[in-house]
C-alpha cells in the first residue's frame, strides 16, 4: 500500500466548498431569531456619562436593548489576557478590566457600549442609531512611540505601560559591544496590519429553555478554548451547558483566536431574552474591532567584527497592545518575539527589551507569525545592513554565522533540534540564480529602472505547545492537543481533533495520517472538528501547531488502536502478540501468513460473543469491547521550521511603483504530509508578508479615528501584485515528534517582509525606507537618490 503521507492528495473538503455547500456562521439561521446590532463608541477615548435607550426601545421591531449596566449587574466577566508577563524588575504586568460592554469609559473607536435586538436587521440598525450615549470626550493616546508620555488611559496603569520586559543579559551584551569593530544600527517600524480574514466575524446563538443549554455558532479558530474562557472567566454558563460550534470558518490568521465581546454578549443575552440571536459583522466593524497585528517601534543594534562575525545583539522595542490585553496580546511581543530576534545565527550575547503599551486603538494580538515576523524583520534588516557596511556578500555573511551543528542552543531560550541552514540558503541561491543578479540589474538599469535583491533567512519557534514550557513563561493554560479515534464496527474511522481547520485542509491531511497509521483508505476516514459536543477538548489552531501537536495526537491514538488490535488479533489467530506483524491494515502471523484485517478485528471488538456455546470470545481476558482510543499529546519542545527566501524587485523611479519580479522560497518544514497543501500555505504566507511590506497599512489619525477602515482605504493585495512564487524545500526531520514534522502555516509571512524590504533598500542604494514601501514613499526616496547621485557626479 502506497503511503498517503507525502502525497499530493486533493482536498476532501473542496467539493462542498466549491459547490456552495460550505456552512459558515452567517449561513446559519434559527427559527424565531432576532438580529443584533451593536452601539459602538465613535470616540477613541471618552467617559460614558449616560446611555439613554428609552426612545430606541420604542422603535419598531425592537425586542430588547442591553448595556454595560446590565452585563455588570449579571456579573458577566470580561475579555482576558491569556499570558502573564513579568517586568524586568519582577513586577506583574498591568492589565485593565475589559468588560464585554463598556460601562464607564470607552477606549477605542468601535468598542461596544450597548446592543439592540430586533425582529429584522433593518429595525435593529435603525434602533441602534437612536440609542443616545452621552460622552465626555478625552484626548486619546494613539501613537506607539509616544504612548508612555501620554496621560494614563486606564486607572492605575502608570505611563500606559503593561510591562517592561527583558530577556537576555545586558552586561554580557555591553561587553560584547565594547569589543566590536563596528556597530550596525537600525530604527524600524513594524507596521500595524489588519488580519482581514475574508469571512467577517459572526455569531448565532440559540438558548434552549428546556435543557438550559446555550449553543454558540461562531467564527473561531478554537471553539473549545472559547468555551473554556466564556465559562471560566465570562461566567456565561457552565461548560456542560455551553456548546460552541465553529463550523466552516473563512480564514483566521490569528484574528479569530480571541473570544470577542459580541460572542459573550449574545450568548448571555440569548438566555436573557429567550430568543435566538444572530450577529454578523460588517467589514468596517471587522476593521475596527478584530484584533490587529504587529505595531512595533524598534531600535536594534548588531555588534560585528570586520570579518563579519556577529558578536552581540540588542533590541529595544515598544509594542502597542491597543486598548486592552487579549489572549495572545502580551506574549506575542515577548516570548514569541524576543527569543527569535537573534535569528538563525550564533550570537554569543543578546538581549531583547520590550515595553508593551496601551493606546486608544483596537487591541493588538497574534497575526500570522505573531512576533516572529517582527523578530525576523529586526535581525534580517540588521544583517543585510551589516553586509552592506562591511562590504561582504549578503549570503556569505549569513553562512559565516549560521550554526552547523544541531541541536543548536540559540542565545535566548530555544534549543533547536534540527536544521540545515547552509543547505537552505545554497538551494535558494541556486534556484533564484543569485549569481546572475548583476546582469539582470544592468538590464533593468538600461530600461531606466532600479533593481534590488534581498535575502531573508529565518527560523521560528512554532508548534506552539509544550505545556511545561509555556506555563513557565506565563501561559494560563497548557497547550497540548487531543484526538480521539473511533474505529467503527463496520470499518469506517472517525478522527476527532481539538485542532480547527479554517483553510488549512485538516479534513484531508489528518485523514492521510490516520489512514496510513491504520492501513485503511483515505475515503474510510472522516475528520471531525469544530464542535465542543463532538470529540475531546482541544486547544485549537494557531502558531502552526495543528500538525506538529494535533497531528501527533492522532498518530498516538491510532497507534493505541493498532496495539489493541494486535492483542485481539493474537487471540483470534491463536498466537502470541509478538508473532504478529501489523502492516497495511493487516495483522499477519509472521510464520504462517495467517491474517486478520483491521476491519475484521474491529468488528470482533464490537461483537465479542456468539450464540454458539463453543464460541470463544475474540477478546483477550480483561480486554474491554469496542475500538476507540484517545490521546493528549504534549511535545517536549516547540518545532523549528527554517529557511531562506530571496526576492528581486524592480522600481520605476518615475512612479515609485515596486514590482516584485522574482520570489524564491526554500523552507525546511521537516517531513511534509501533503505537498499540495503545504505549497498553498507558503504561497499565502508570502503574499501576506508582501502585503505588509508593500501595501498594507493601518492608519489612525491623531484623534484615534481609523482612517483605513474599509477595502476602499486599506490596500488588500490583489492577484496582480504578485509574481509566480518559486518554492523549494529541504528536509531535516523534527526529533520531538514521531512524524518528524515542523509546521508550515506562518513561515511565508515570517520570511517575506525582510526579503522584500532588503531588496527595495538594495535598489535604493541602501536608503532606509519603512514598511509599507508604497509608491509614494518609494517615489520620494527615488527623488532623494537622484539628488545625491547628481551631487556625486
Amino acid at each position, binding site marked *: 500500500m502506497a503511503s498517503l503521507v507525502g502525497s499530493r492528495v*486533493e*482536498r476532501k*473538503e*473542496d*467539493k462542498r*466548498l*466549491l*459547490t*456552495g*455547500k*460550505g*456552512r*459558515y456562521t*452567517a*449561513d446559519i439561521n434559527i427559527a424565531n431569531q432576532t438580529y443584533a446590532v451593536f452601539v459602538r463608541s465613535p470616540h477613541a477615548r471618552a467617559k460614558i456619562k449616560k446611555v439613554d435607550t428609552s426612545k430606541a426601545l420604542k422603535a419598531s421591531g425592537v425586542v430588547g436593548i442591553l448595556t454595560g449596566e446590565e452585563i455588570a449587574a449579571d456579573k458577566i466577566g470580561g475579555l482576558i489576557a491569556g499570558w502573564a508577563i513579568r517586568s524586568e524588575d519582577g513586577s506583574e504586568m498591568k492589565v485593565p478590566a475589559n468588560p464585554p460592554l463598556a460601562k464607564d469609559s470607552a477606549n477605542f473607536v468601535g468598542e461596544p457600549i450597548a446592543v439592540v435586538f430586533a425582529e429584522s436587521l*433593518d429595525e435593529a440598525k435603525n434602533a441602534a442609531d437612536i440609542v443616545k450615549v452621552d460622552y465626555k470626550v478625552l484626548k486619546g493616546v494613539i501613537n506607539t512611540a509616544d504612548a508612555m508620555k501620554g496621560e494614563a488611559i486606564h486607572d492605575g496603569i502608570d505611563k500606559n505601560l503593561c510591562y517592561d520586559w527583558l530577556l537576555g543579559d545586558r552586561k554580557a551584551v555591553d561587553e560584547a559591544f565594547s569589543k566590536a569593530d563596528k556597530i550596525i544600527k537600525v530604527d524600524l517600524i513594524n507596521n500595524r496590519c489588519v488580519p*482581514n*480574514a*475574508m*469571512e*467577517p466575524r459572526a455569531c448565532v446563538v440559540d438558548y434552549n429553555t428546556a435543557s438550559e443549554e446555550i449553543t454558540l455558532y461562531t467564527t473561531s479558530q478554537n471553539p473549545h478554548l472559547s468555551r473554556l474562557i466564556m465559562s471560566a472567566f465570562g461566567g456565561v454558563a457552565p461548560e456542560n451547558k455551553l456548546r460552541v460550534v465553529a463550523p*466552516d*470558518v*473563512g*480564514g483566521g*490568521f490569528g484574528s479569530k483566536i480571541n473570544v470577542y465581546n459580541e460572542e459573550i454578549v449574545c450568548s448571555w443575552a440569548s438566555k436573557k431574552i429567550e430568543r435566538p440571536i444572530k450577529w454578523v459583522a*460588517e*467589514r*468596517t466593524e471587522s476593521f475596527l474591532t478584530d484584533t490587529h497585528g504587529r505595531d512595533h517601534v524598534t531600535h536594534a543594534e548588531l555588534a560585528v567584527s570586520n570579518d563579519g562575525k556577529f558578536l552581540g545583539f540588542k533590541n529595544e522595542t515598544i509594542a502597542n497592545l491597543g486598548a486592552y490585553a487579549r489572549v495572545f496580546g502580551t506574549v506575542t511581543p515577548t516570548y514569541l518575539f524576543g527569543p527569535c530576534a537573534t535569528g538563525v545565527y550564533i550570537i554569543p550575547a543578546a538581549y531583547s527589551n520590550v515595553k508593551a503599551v496601551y493606546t486608544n486603538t483596537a487591541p493588538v494580538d497574534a497575526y500570522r507569525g505573531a512576533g516572529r515576523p517582527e523578530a525576523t524583520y529586526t535581525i534580517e534588516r540588521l544583517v543585510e545592513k551589516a553586509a552592506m557596511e562591511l562590504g561582504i556578500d549578503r549570503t556569505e555573511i549569513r553562512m559565516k554565522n549560521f550554526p552547523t551543528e544541531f541541536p543548536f542552543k540559540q542565545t535566548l531560550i530555544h534549543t533547536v533540534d534540527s536544521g540545515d541552514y547552509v543547505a537552505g540558503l545554497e538551494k535558494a541561491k541556486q534556484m533564484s540564480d543569485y549569481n546572475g543578479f548583476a546582469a539582470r540589474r544592468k538590464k533593468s538599469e538600461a530600461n531606466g529602472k532600479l533593481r534590488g535583491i534581498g535575502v531573508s533567512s529565518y527560523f521560528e519557534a512554532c508548534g506552539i505547545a509544550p505545556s511545561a514550557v509555556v506555563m513557565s513563561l506565563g501561559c494560563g493554560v497548557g497547550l497540548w492537543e487531543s484526538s480521539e479515534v473511533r474505529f467503527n464496527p463496520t470499518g469506517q474511522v472517525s478522527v476527532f481533533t481539538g485542532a480547527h481547520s*479554517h*483553510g*488549512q*485542509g485538516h479534513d484531508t491531511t489528518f485523514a492521510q495520517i490516520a489512514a496510513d497509521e491504520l492501513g485503511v483508505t483515505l475515503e474510510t476516514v472522516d475528520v471531525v472538528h469544530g464542535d465542543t459536543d463532538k470529540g475531546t477538548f482541544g486547544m485549537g489552531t494557531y502558531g502552526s501547531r495543528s500538525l506538529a501537536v494535533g497531528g501527533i495526537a492522532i498518530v498516538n491514538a491510532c497507534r493505541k488502536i493498532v496495539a489493541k488490535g494486535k492483542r485481539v488479533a493474537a487471540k483470534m489467530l491463536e498466537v502470541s502478540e509478538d508473532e504478529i506483524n501489523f502492516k497495511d491494515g493487516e495483522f499477519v502471523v509472521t510464520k504462517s501468513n495467517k491474517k486478520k484485517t483491521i476491519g475484521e478485528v474491529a468488528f470482533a471488538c464490537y461483537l465479542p460473543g456468539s450464540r454458539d456455546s463453543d464460541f470463544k470470545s475474540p477478546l483477550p481476558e480483561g480486554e474491554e469491547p469496542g475500538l476507540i482510543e484517545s490521546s493528549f499529546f504534549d511535545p517536549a519542545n516547540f518545532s523549528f521550521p527554517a529557511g531562506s527566501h530571496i526576492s528581486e524587485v524592480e522600481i520605476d523611479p518615475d512612479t515609485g511603483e515596486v514590482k516584485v519580479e522574482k520570489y524564491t522560497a526554500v523552507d525546511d518544514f521537516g517531513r511534509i504530509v501533503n505537498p*499540495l*497543501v503545504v*505549497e*498553498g500555505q507558503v*504561497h*499565502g*504566507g*508570502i*503574499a*501576506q508578508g508582501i502585503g505588509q511590506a508593500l501595501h498594507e497599512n493601518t492608519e489612525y489619525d491623531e484623534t484615534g479615528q481609523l482612517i483605513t477602515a*474599509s*477595502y*476602499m482605504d486599506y490596500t*488588500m493585495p*490583489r*492577484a*496582480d501584485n*504578485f509574481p*509566480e*512564487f518559486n518554492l523549494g524545500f529541504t528536509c531535516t526531520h523534527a526529533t520531538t515528534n514521531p512524524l518528524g514534522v515542523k509546521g508550515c502555516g506562518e513561515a*511565508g509571512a515570517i520570511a517575506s517582509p525582510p526579503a522584500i524590504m532588503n531588496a527595495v533598500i538594495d535598489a535604493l542604494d541602501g536608503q532606509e525606507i519603512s514598511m509599507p514601501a508604497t509608491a509614494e514613499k518609494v517615489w520620494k526616496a527615488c527623488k532623494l537618490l537622484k539628488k545625491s547621485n547628481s551631487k556625486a557626479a
Partner: protein
Amino acid sequence: MSKVTLEVNGKKVSKDVPNHTILSDFLRDNLNLTGTHVGCDTSQCGACVVHVDGKSIKSCSTLAADVDGSKVTTIEGLVKDGKMHPMQEAFKKMHGLQCGFCTPGMVMSAIDLLQNKKNPSDAEIRKWLEGNICRCTGYQNIVAAVKEAASKV
C-alpha cells in the same frame, strides 16, 4: 415592496421583497442560496459574484428589483448531472482554495473570464481577478486553476 421574478439556476422564483433588497440578500435570505458570500460592504472583495444573464456581477451592489426578469446563476447552479463545472474541478485539482470563503465569487468571475478570452495569459488572469480578493492562497493556485480550466473548456 417590489415583486421580483427571476430565473435562478434554471428555476423560476418570485418573491415580494422590500425595494432596497440587494441581490446577495435576496439569494441568501429569500432563496437560502448561501453559497454566495458577502465579505465587504463596499463592492471590493468579490465573494458575492454571480452571473446575471451570463455576465459576472457583484450581487452585493445590485438591487434585486433592478435585475427583475433576468437569469441568475450562482455557485450552486454550476453542478450539472452531479458533475462539477470544469472550473470547479480545476480549483480542486490545483488547490485553488483554502478557507473557501472567496471561492464562489472567484469561480464565477473566472468562468466569465474564459467566456471573454479563451486562453488568457497569467497576466490577463491576474488583471481580471482584480475585483476578487483572497487572503489565503496568494492567488498562485487560483491562477493555475484558471489555466487548467482554460485547457479543458
